[in-house]
Structures are given as structure tokens and as C-alpha cells.
């Protein structure tokens, strides 16, 4: 009798509940164990880089919103910083503070989504996800006050921000800052010591610091592997050099560490926002620029610490109103490099959780 023990290849995605969009993996299983993974991407490719070559510099801001659509503020920030470096533009203080406040709020919102979907992949039926979304909703409300939009914000402009925060914004922000620490503590209490979460995530898919650096993996994943590298500290942009915060690192590099780093980073973001609110002073929010931004020929690449890792726009200008080349370095895209190493050898359930712990966004992977 011959038993057919061939490994089975399964297409996970592009339509699958836990691939966070249209992401596809060709996974080969030996029973429940994963023996091979091949990520297949491009289902959401919209050609942002090509589109950017045909638009003027201000119009491209709306394109950046659609990259990592759960963290639009930081996308805006990375883009305008590169543009400002191209011409050496100085941004007024109030504009920079508003940018940092918005970016840190966006970081909290993005990490909430990351944690919520991580738990969803673990099989917690919606409860942590809905809790995370409840808090994120408040942040989106704040964005709505800032710029009228919730997801595709287009709040930042070259030389500052689109408009000053309305008067109502500050009390609303204060109320939010009063509530959110208890929300984060609640998440912490619900999840961090749950026996099933610990049993499922501790020691699963560990990445060492060297592996991460070699594979250009940045952001919370790198810090969860024990490397103290945060562009807000090592290459401060905007006003990050005027606020005090800690770079959270954990030594383990496993799925649990990636979750725990995100949770701790949310608290640090709140610290940054508090200091910014204390330091911000009245003044202009935007430097005066020409209506058509026309930088001199040259190039600029200013990476920032987006919620998911290093995000940067490599802009080559030829002196016209639209960039000659606009290459986007999306952290989600590069963080997928080690997907195979992370998933092979583990079971299907753990592979899905490892994918969730990367907290990638397909809009940014495919661009």
C-alpha cells in the first residue's frame, strides 16, 4: 500500500480574511506544518511612482494618503520633509508641532489597528479589534477637526500644515489624552497576560537583530529584536529633538515582543503629544511658498519613523513642477523580506499570526 504523503500547496489569498487586504501567499504544507512560503504581491499596485511623475508637488500629497491608508499622516510627513529638504525650506515652529502631534496620534491609531488585527489573527473573535477601533475612532475624530478628513487626510503641506488647528481641537485633544491611558491599560490587562496569548505567541517566529538589519527590516519589528534604532532619536526631524521619549526595545524578537513593543510605543507617543501640547506656541503654521512648488534640480531622501518602520520618499527633481523620479520606500514592503524565514517550520495557525505580527499594509506593499 502506498500512502500519498505529498505536501499540499495552498493559495492563501488574495481573498483571505487574514491577509490584511489583497496579499497572496503560496504556502506548502506538510500536514499542518509550513514547509515553504512564497509571497505574491502586486494585486493593489496602482503605480503611485508613475503617477507622481505626472503631477505637481502639491498634488502628490493626495497620492501619499493612499499608500499606507491606516497611517496617512506619517506618509504626508515623509513626503513633505523630502520636498522641504530639496529647497532647504524652514517650517514655522507651530507647523512642526502640529505635524508631530498629528503624526503621533496617527502612530497610536496605526498601532491600535496592528494590535487589533494581530489579536484577530490569533482568533479572538472581534473583541480586542472592536476595542481598538473604538479608541481609533476618537483619533479619527480629532483628524476630522484638524483637516476635515478621517483617513485620507492630506493635512500636511510643503512648508507646514494645511491650516491651524481649530479652537475646539485643543479641549478635544485634552479629553482624549485623559481617556486613552486607561484604554491602553485595559488592552494591556486583557491581552498581555492572557495564558492563551502567551502560549500562542511566546517564542514563535523569532528574528534576531542581525537578521532584521541585514534584511532592512525597521520599525517596531527591529526594536522587538533588541536593536535600539528609531529615526526619531537617531535622525530627529521636525521637533522630535525637543521632546523626551524612550525608544522601546525588547530582546526576544518573537511575535509577543512585536506586540508588546507596539503597546509600549503607544504610551511613548502619548508622552510626546503631551510635551508638544505644553510647548506649542501661537504663530504661523505654514511657510510661504510659491503656488507652484518648483524646486531646483537635485535630490533628497529624508526617512522618517513611520508606525511600521522607515518610510522615505527619494525625490529627484529636474527643476520642473513635477518630480523627475519619486521612489517610495515603504516599510511594509521591505518588512516582508523575511516572511519565509518567519513562517517555515511553524504551523498554519502560527504562520498566520506571524504575518499579523508584521503589521503590514498592502496599500504600501504594492504602492
Amino acid at each position, binding site marked *: *500500500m*502506498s*500512502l*500519498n*504523503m*505529498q*505536501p*499540499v500547496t*495552498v493559495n492563501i489569498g488574495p481573498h*483571505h*480574511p*487574514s491577509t490584511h487586504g489583497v496579499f497572496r501567499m503560496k504556502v*506548502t504544507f*506538510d500536514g*499542518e*506544518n509550513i*514547509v*515553504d512560503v512564497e509571497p505574491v504581491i502586486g494585486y493593489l499596485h496602482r503605480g503611485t511612482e508613475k503617477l507622481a511623475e505626472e503631477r505637481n508637488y502639491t498634488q502628490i500629497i493626495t497620492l501619499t494618503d493612499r499608500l499606507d491608508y491606516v497611517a496617512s499622516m506619517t506618509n504626508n510627513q515623509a513626503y513633505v520633509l523630502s520636498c522641504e529638504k530639496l529647497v532647504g525650506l524652514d517650517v514655522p515652529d507651530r507647523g512642526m508641532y502640529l505635524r508631530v502631534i498629528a503624526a503621533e496620534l496617527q502612530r497610536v491609531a496605526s498601532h491600535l489597528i496592528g494590535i487589533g488585527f494581530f*489579536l*484577530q*489573527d*490569533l*482568533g*479572538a*473573535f*472581534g*473583541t480586542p*479589534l*472592536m*476595542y481598538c477601533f*473604538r479608541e481609533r475612532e476618537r483619533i479619527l475624530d480629532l483628524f476630522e477637526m484638524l483637516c476635515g478628513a478621517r483617513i485620507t487626510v492630506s493635512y500636511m503641506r510643503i512648508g507646514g500644515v494645511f491650516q491651524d488647528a481649530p479652537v475646539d481641537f485643543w479641549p478635544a485633544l485634552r479629553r482624549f489624552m485623559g481617556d486613552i491611558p486607561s484604554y491602553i491599560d485595559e488592552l494591556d490587562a486583557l491581552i498581555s497576560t*492572557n495564558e*492563551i*496569548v*502567551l*502560549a*500562542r505567541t*511566546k*517564542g*514563535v517566529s523569532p528574528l534576531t537583530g542581525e537578521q532584521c538589519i541585514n534584511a532592512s527590516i525597521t520599525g517596531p519589528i527591529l526594536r522587538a529584536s533588541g536593536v535600539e534604532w528609531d529615526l526619531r532619536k537617531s535622525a530627529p526631524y521636525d521637533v522630535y529633538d525637543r521632546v523626551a521619549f524612550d525608544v522601546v526595545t525588547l530582546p526576544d524578537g518573537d511575535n509577543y515582543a512585536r506586540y508588546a513593543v507596539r503597546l509600549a510605543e503607544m504610551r511613548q507617543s502619548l508622552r510626546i503629544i503631551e510635551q508638544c501640547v505644553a510647548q506649542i506656541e501661537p504663530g504661523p503654521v505654514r511657510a510661504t511658498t510659491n503656488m507652484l512648488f518648483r524646486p531646483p534640480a537635485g535630490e533628497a531622501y529624508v526617512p522618517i519613523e513611520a508606525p511600521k518602520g522607515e518610510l522615505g520618499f527619494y525625490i529627484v527633481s529636474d527643476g520642473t513642477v513635477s518630480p523627475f523620479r519619486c521612489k517610495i520606500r515603504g516599510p511594509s514592503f521591505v518588512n516582508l523580506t523575511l516572511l519565509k524565514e518567519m513562517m*517555515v*517550520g*511553524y*504551523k*498554519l*495557525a*502560527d504562520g*498566520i499570526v506571524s504575518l*499579523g505580527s508584521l503589521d503590514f499594509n498592502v496599500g504600501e506593499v504594492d504602492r
Partner: protein
Amino acid sequence: MGDVLAENRIFSTVYTLVNDLVPDGWSWVAYLAAGMSIIMFVVNSLMIMATFYTWVERRLLGRFQSRLGPNRAGPFGLLQPIADLLKLISKEDILPRSADRIIFNVAPVLMLAATLIVLAVVPFGRGSYIADLNIGILFVVAISGIGTFSIFMAGWASANKYAMFGSMRAIAALVSYEVPMVMSILSVVVLTGSMSMVDIAEGQALPFILVLPMAFMIFMVSISAELNRAPFDIVEAESELISGYNTEYSGMKFGTFFAAEFANGLVASAVIAVLFLQGWRWAVLPSHLWFLLKVGALAFVFIWIRATLPRLRIDQILGFAWKFLLPLSLINLVVAAVEVLSWPEQTALQQFYMALINWPVAIVSIVVFSKVVSKRQPVQPVVRATVAQEVV
């Protein structure tokens, strides 16, 4: 004729009514009509309750998740299940091209049938049951196993890899959890000295949840695993397997699975209520209502657990059954047997003494086992040198 059902009021009413109408020698018609009326009554009440249960579950999950849940169709969204049902009925019924036609169609029916047959031996109230089989609980265990077969049939016949994964997981979970479940039922049987569901309910001077706490816990866990309820819902783990064994099902076939699943939850709650909560006894309300309240409370616990806990991995689930639940259920059985030898009369006082012994035993053994036996194992990636191999 009709010995088993002679005490049943619905049966006797319908039987007398029809028997007066038909000529002599045609009393089998009356018997058939009476039997059918009981079946119709019981099956329809269960299906209506299961439909209502879907609404309850979705509303409660909404509350747990700080959102509203279905609230548009009818008052409080009460008509939502009916709307869902209408949608499912009117949907196209898709049969995958490479599916095994017969098995694919039979599987949902079989699953629902297995759920409904279990109801035959469940006493709903004082003197209200379809059949008081002397092997009642054995019957329950035997028939509920068929449900897992139908899951396997569905997964196999779908010719879908996700469905296959789901059904294989179902078989693994069934084989593992049947053992501790039956062991914990045995301790109940030892105490009451009977397998009849009615006798078990009558034999509980105190509710067995107090007398046999460990058996109750083991049974709750095992039945959750058997029914694929969280945190053991690996069979239809939506983040891994999309929907598991019913991935390829659509329309009313899926609806049948869906209804069977919810009916299963209710039937399991009813069985637990009989085994551990004295069934209909100690009623301060009419006994049927009292029983329903107990079933509802247990169903609520299932929903509560589902909203709270993440899912376990398959090896953890199987390891939990064999390394943790099986030894505990053996301890539980031995202790119960020794106690029955010491106090053969089952009065409330004697069951109280048993509870006094059983609670410390339960706490100590669970703590010791969780500390000693099931230490968290470090996860090791399984790396195989050769991927493809042929076993001859």
C-alpha cells in the same frame, strides 16, 4: 404499543383524538399521528430557539465588543434571523464541479439530524421527554459523534483544501476530547447509578456542579471542543481556514450547517443542564421554564467564552486533552467511585460530604497538574530535510 410514550401528554391527547376518528384496527394511524405531532413540536421549538439563539449570540457579542449588533429588522432586530433565513433560502445553491455530489448534499442534513435525534432523550421538564432510554447518556454521546462525521464528509466532499484542513482538525479534536468527556460523564453515572437522563436528573440531591466540580469543568471544556466553540474553534478558524469545512457551501445547505451548529449549542447546554444542574428540579418556576433558564445561562457562558478568548493551536488543543484533561478525569472518576463505595445512599447530606471532599481534590489536582505536568513547551520549528516523501 406506546409504552415509552404512554405518559406523554401530547402523545396521549393526539392519540386519543385520532383513535376516536379512525375505525378499529387503524390505531397505527393514531400512533403515527401522535408521534409525528410530538416530533413536529419538539423539532420546531428547537429550530425556533436556535434561530433566536443566533440573534442572542449576535446581540451579546455586540455588547461584549462595545457595539450594537443587529438592531434594524424588527424590534431590537428580532426579525434579523428571519431576514437571514430568507436570504439564505433565496441564494443560489452552488455545487463545486469536483465535489462528490451525494456526500456533499447529505452532510448538512446528517449534521442537523444528529443534533435533533439527541433531543429524544433529553427531559425538558417534570415528566416531559420523548423517550426515557435506560442508556440515555450513552445514546447522547454516540449520536453526537455523528455530527463530526458529517463535518468530515462535508470537508472531504467539497474538494477544497481549506475544508479538508478543517475536517481533519475536527476528527483529531473528536478523537481526543471524546475520551475525557466520557470519563467525566462516567463519574456522574457512577454517582447516580443509572444512564437514563431522567434518573440522572432525579438522582441529584444537590446539583452535580457542586458535587463533582472537576467533572463539570472537564465536561464543559470537552463539549466546547466537540462543538468547535471558542477557544477550540480550530475547525472553522476564520483567520486561518476562512470557514473550514463549510467553505464551499452556500445557500440553504450552509444555512442547515449554521442552524445545526446553533442547535448543537443549545442541545449541549440542555445536556449539561441535565447532567450537572439537576435538569428541571428545584423549580421555583414551572419546570419547563426553569429548565430553559438553565439552558439559557449555559448558552450565555458559551457566548461569553467565545467573546473573550483567542484560539488555541491544534497541537496545544490535542496536548491539553491527553496530557491534562485525561489524567484529571481519571482522578475524578476514581475519587467518585471510592466515595460511592463509602456512601452508597445518595442523600443530600451524603452528596454534601462528597462535595466537601471533591472541591479540595479538584483544586489541588488542577493546580498540581498545571504546575507540574503542563509546563509551557518552547515552540520548536519543525524542519524536515526532505519535503516530498513516499511511504511504501
